[in-house]
């Protein structure tokens, strides 16, 4: 695995921050937010590069790719499946702003704009030119990418797939969520009664997925097993989930059926938990309905913000860390339960526990919902 997020560079830094429940949200300085309601975001650490033209998204993807290489040098992918929402949008913004004057850097801005560029840059860093499927299913993209890659392997179509997601902060998306009044002026308080919205984040995460026997044969480090994937589409509204939670409910029950697991066998749910009124209500109702056993639930977005297309991949990495290190990541900034749904929130501090199976949720605009189940290796 490899990860870059506001919690740090690499899995080690992420694990420490998760255990500490570190709040990594900070004021936005990379563009003007004076006319926005919300003024904070989760920023990934700066990643220096000799190539000054590299977009921040490419830098994060390359960093995550090289971490996967360091963890498993023998992994040679046959394909890549990567999720994103906005690609190199910030360079598209720079291009727009430079319309009146033509200068040479415009070509580089356009070169960085396509969503495929950071993916190709990461593959190049690995010395690979395998085909890349880039999923743009809004905020579910990262989980969809991992889920589809998992299915490719289980169906015998591929043995080794590089899967993950990325997104870098940009002005257009920041203002977009602000204009919808989905962004908060407060702290991010997932599932709290007085939650008032999300803050955006950024990052990249990659996981090396391999057919189990193939991985065992070559003595690869096996960190976890993906056992289930569920996808659903909620046609209620382009930006709002159905209040009944039917979309998340279908995704979670399909993932459970896919993994041949009962709800009580899941030891932890890493919720989508954006802290918007509508998302958390819909997801909370669905979790309460599917998991009557009061399974521990947390959203890690209170610590790092919502990294959109990267979120599902980053949170899958967090789930693997939780499985391997035996802890429940905390849901920080939590003060008061929402009476609309009865959940066992891992409030504010991490808990030590042994985990066998966990579920990670990601939901997005367009009504797309994805759930994946990860298990400790037996």
């Amino acid at each position, binding site marked *: 695995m490899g990860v870059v997020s506001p919690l740090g560079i690499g899995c080690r830094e992420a694990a420490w921050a998760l255990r500490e429940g570190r709040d990594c949200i900070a004021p936005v300085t990379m563009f003007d937010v004076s006319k926005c309601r919300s003024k904070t975001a989760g920023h990934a650490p700066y990643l220096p590069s000799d190539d000054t033209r590299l977009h921040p998204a490419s830098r994060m993807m390359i960093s995550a790719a090289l971490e996967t290489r360091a963890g498993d040098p023998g992994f040679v992918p046959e394909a890549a499946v990567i999720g994103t929402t906005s690609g190199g949008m910030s360079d598209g913004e720079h291009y727009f702003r430079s319309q009146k004057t033509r200068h040479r850097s415009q070509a580089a801005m356009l070169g960085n704009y396509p969503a495929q560029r950071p993916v190709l840059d990461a593959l190049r860093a690995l010395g690979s030119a395998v085909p890349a499927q880039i999923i743009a299913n809004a905020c579910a993209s990262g989980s969809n990418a991992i889920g589809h890659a998992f299915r490719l392997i289980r169906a015998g179509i591929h043995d080794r797939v590089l899967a993950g997601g990325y997104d870098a902060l940009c002005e257009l998306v920041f203002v977009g969520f602000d204009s919808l009044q989905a962004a908060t002026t407060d702290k991010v308080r997932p599932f709290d009664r007085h939650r008032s919205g999300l803050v955006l984040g950024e990052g990249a995460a990659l996981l090396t997925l391999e057919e189990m026997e193939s991985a065992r044969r070559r003595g690869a480090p096996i960190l976890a097993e993906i056992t289930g994937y569920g996808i659903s*589409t909620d046609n209620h509204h382009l930006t709002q989930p159905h209040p009944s939670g039917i979309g998340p409910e279908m995704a979670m029950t399909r993932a459970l059926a896919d993994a041949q697991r009962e709800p009580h066998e899941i030891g932890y749910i890493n919720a989508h938990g954006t802290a918007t009124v509508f998302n958390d209500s819909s997801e909370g109702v669905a979790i309460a309905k599917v998991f009557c056993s009061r399974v521990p639930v947390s959203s890690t977005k209170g610590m790092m913000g919502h990294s959109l297309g990267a979120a599902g991949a980053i949170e899958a990495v967090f789930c693997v860390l939780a499985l391997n290190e035996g802890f429940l990541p905390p849901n920080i900034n939590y003060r008061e339960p929402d009476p609309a749904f009865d959940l066992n929130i891992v409030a504010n501090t991490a808990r030590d526990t042994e985990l066998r199976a966990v579920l990670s949720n990601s939901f997005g605009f*367009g009504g*797309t919902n994805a759930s994946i189940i990860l298990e400790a290796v037996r």
Partner: protein
Amino acid sequence: MSKLTCFIAGAGIVTPHGSGIESASAALEAGSAPPVSEVTNPETGRRHLIATVAPNFTAHIAREPRLRRASAISLLAATAAQAAVAASGMTPNSRTALVVGVSNGCAQYTRRFYEQIVKTGANTASPLLFPETVHNAPASHLAAMLKLDGATYTLIGDASIGVQALHFGNQILAMGDADHVLVVATEELDWILAEGHQLWRLTSRTGKCTPHAGGGTLLAEGAAAVVLSRSDGFARITTVPGHSIMNRRSAPHALDASLSQLGSAQPDWIVDGANGTWLDAVFAECSRGRKRLSPKAGIGEALGASALQQVVIAADVLRRTNSAQALVPTLGWNQQAGAALVEI
């Protein structure tokens, strides 16, 4: 298992000539160029020639409740998808998956939304525009229109994305996750796209696209859709994963590698993606000695929609010429080479 095969049960296409394969086919047979219009950068007055799809070709679909405020890209997608579904006779249900391929996505709303931020301030940017800027907005509208609640995916990439989306759909069928997959590829244009492509010296100044003759390409709007079925259809289609291209020099190898994944095909036709740019030399190598059709001369370069348009046109060419096999090689400017084999 690199190559996968299934059936095409229904197809639809929208080009600047209109909706339906008949108008595209008639234009290609007659050697007609697409109708061209001019767009202008309002800041600089720089003008560009592009081939758009007239609104009357998608007006009927704009009455759908979810499409009333939608951008052209969604209307184009829905028009092609509706035709493909109707032609297939399939009734969409929970076992119907949707895969939509795009290149630049909702360029018009994205440019307009950002323009508001820059010109009048972030606090005036319209919340009605932002949701339509999201790449999967067309897929969401299609899913709502067809009442699909299962797997819905949007893929993004260069001009090869239509065939990538076909392969993705083929994978979903091979996994057993769906009985049918509706694959759609769609693209809309805006002056900012025309200007960006002109900056890269990819577009023609004459408003013509002359494949295998250089001179640059003519950007076009359009869409295509096919219904994939595991068991039956009017054509068989084989797809491969393809190969990434890291730079222009690696493109010939990437296309060769993609074609070799298909195995030893002996196609009657090559329906290539030649568009008047540097891609043409790469396509020329793979069509040597075979009957070749370069449809972008007649319908323009529709970027994200183009590869699937090639596939729909290839199936039509086979029907009209009573031929058996058409090879569709695809290559974009900055991501991937791919290939599909269409058989009747």
